[in-house]
């Protein structure tokens, strides 16, 4: 009972504190690994099929085509992961506003 409680508690702590911090790194890691796998596959295909191997395009242009899509995915994922982050006010501005409200 106690062990399960500790596990649940640890999981809750993880969800509340660590997960939001780790998630962007995990997504970044996933992106880099995905890109690496893609490049390996693409390279093998080019070697086996010659110039017009990827999407009917040469390797250089095909790579640009796929990188366009991957970089868009990166923007979308980064935007969604950080959707609600970053509305903290600047300290001095906050202090100035406080001073203005105080009579």
């Amino acid at each position, binding site marked *: 009972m106690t062990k399960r409680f500790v596990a649940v508690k640890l999981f809750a702590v993880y969800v509340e504190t660590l997960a939001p911090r780790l998630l962007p790194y995990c997504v970044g890691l996933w992106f880099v690994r995905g890109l690496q796998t893609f490049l390996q596959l693409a390279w093998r295909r080019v070697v086996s099929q010659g110039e017009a191997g990827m999407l009917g395009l040469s390797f250089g242009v095909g790579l640009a085509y796929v990188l366009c899509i991957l970089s868009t995915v990166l923007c979308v994922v980064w935007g969604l992961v950080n959707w609600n982050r*970053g509305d903290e006010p600047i300290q001095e501005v906050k202090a100035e506003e406080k001073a203005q409200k105080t009579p």
Partner: protein
Amino acid sequence: MRALRVLASLSLMWLSCGLAFAQTVSTAVPPAEPSASTSTPAAAMTVNITKLDVISAVLYVLILGWLSWIAYRKSKTAEEYLVAGRDTHPFVMALSYGATFISTSAIVGFGGVAGSHGMSLLWLTFLNIFTGIFVAFAVLGAPIRRMGQHLKAHTFPELLGKRYDSKFVQVFAGALIFIFMPIYVAAVMLGGVKFLFIQFNINYAAGILIFGVIVAFYVIVGGLRGVMYTDAFQGLLMFVGMVVLLFYAYAAAGGFISAHQALGDLSDHISKDLRYGGIAGYTQMPMTGSPKWWWLVSSLVLGVGIGVLAQPQLAVRFMTVKSRKEINRACAIGGVFILAMTGTAFVVGALSNVYFHAKFNGKTAIDVALDRVTNKTDTELIIPTFIKQAMPAWFSTFFFLTLLSAAMSTLSSQFHTMGAAIGRDVYERLFRRGEAKADVWTRFITQVGIAVAVIVSLLLSWKYSEKPNAAVIARATSIFFALCASTFLPSLILGLFWRRMNRKAAIASMLVAFLFTAFWLTFMQKDTATALGVTTSMFGMDTAKSPPVPVRLTLVGRQPWPFIDALVFALPLSFIVAVAVALITKPMSEEHLNRCFPKTG
């Protein structure tokens, strides 16, 4: 007083439109003879303005006027006029950023280059998304917003000036923007006008006038808020138009992979000039190290791809939002938007070859894109000709609004940036009057600056139109982007992230980059050196030949030097100078640095 200004602007707009229309009617090129053979592309075109075109255009202008009016009512102070009150919605910010970034220059100019040079230009799309959106929003956006808000900066030069506590930096940056931005503005104008020319047979001079006056009207009335509201509306139109165009183009070329393969099979039809320059095929990169490779990679891909980070009209967008949250959200929207814009333009530009090849008995896009006045082929007419020929009539009308939006959203921001540069950064910094009157005078000079910028840009654009098939839109755009990147980027990036960076380093870096770029464009880069003619006038003409030819077009004639863009050397040099000077001179005071780098939380 405010109502009078609106009335005056309205009168000016309608008067100018009337004049432009009169000129259009009197000087329009006569339509092709119906009896002419329809096997030639120029003859296949019929030129008319339908009721649908007129109704759409009127409705469009009315919506712009309404949005400007809303913005005008909300813009009372200089802060509201220059940075939209710093409370812009993320959706408006993202679309405004994207619509400002992507103009007719990208769609018509660079799309045309893709039509003649192939899909290798997709590397620029990749950099547009990765650096222009991801790096700009995820890395630079928040620090620019934080520092700009804390230092109460209203413009990009003011941000640099306040970061380095330097009047010189602000005035120099402002003057540079005001003087050189018309190079880019004129390119954007011409991109829109090329479409008007193909679609409605409106001649260049009249088209340029119509564009300039309508945009100047709503920028002068609505300020940055007006610019951003209209940008968001125009961005939506652009997105829909380009997505539909992409699907149509792939469908017309036989499907996704089939279209690419058909395009790849056309490599034998590439013209001798392009082949000699290094273009091997429409689905391949140019030959490494060839003149075309250097032009494509150094001028277009790197120049525009990196230059976007230091574009004053884009950087100021980050200062219009309330917090970092809006920038984060805008990143997701912006990425998709840019993919749909430049990705579509470059893919469709290249795929148009497949369509034209099938329809016009083996001709390629560049053979078909014919200027009916000069009877010469023109790269920048490829996309407009493709729309006119391949798309249904209703889509031509809709795409006309898409291009109008692309041109106007960029032009409005450019005019606003140039006006702010001369009003806020040059006039106010040099001749500031009393605090009470500063706001009124700044706004007045800004509006006069916009009017002057419009006139200069109109004249320049008209001069560009006299040079067909020189890819002048893409060249002019890349020159301005590269100049901004070399001159501003080191000062911006190091100023945002390195406390040691100081005033002397910023000034040295900006001056070295500017002077080097000016030298390279005047003496080394073939296109610009030939156009300016300074090298030729220094070395004279070889009169032994008939007709006489210039002894030298550039200082160094050996390849690849005349084809390398100034940015390749100027940007690293500028960074090195900035770091070296910062390390050997004293850092700025702790008090000033604490003002520049406020703590959050």
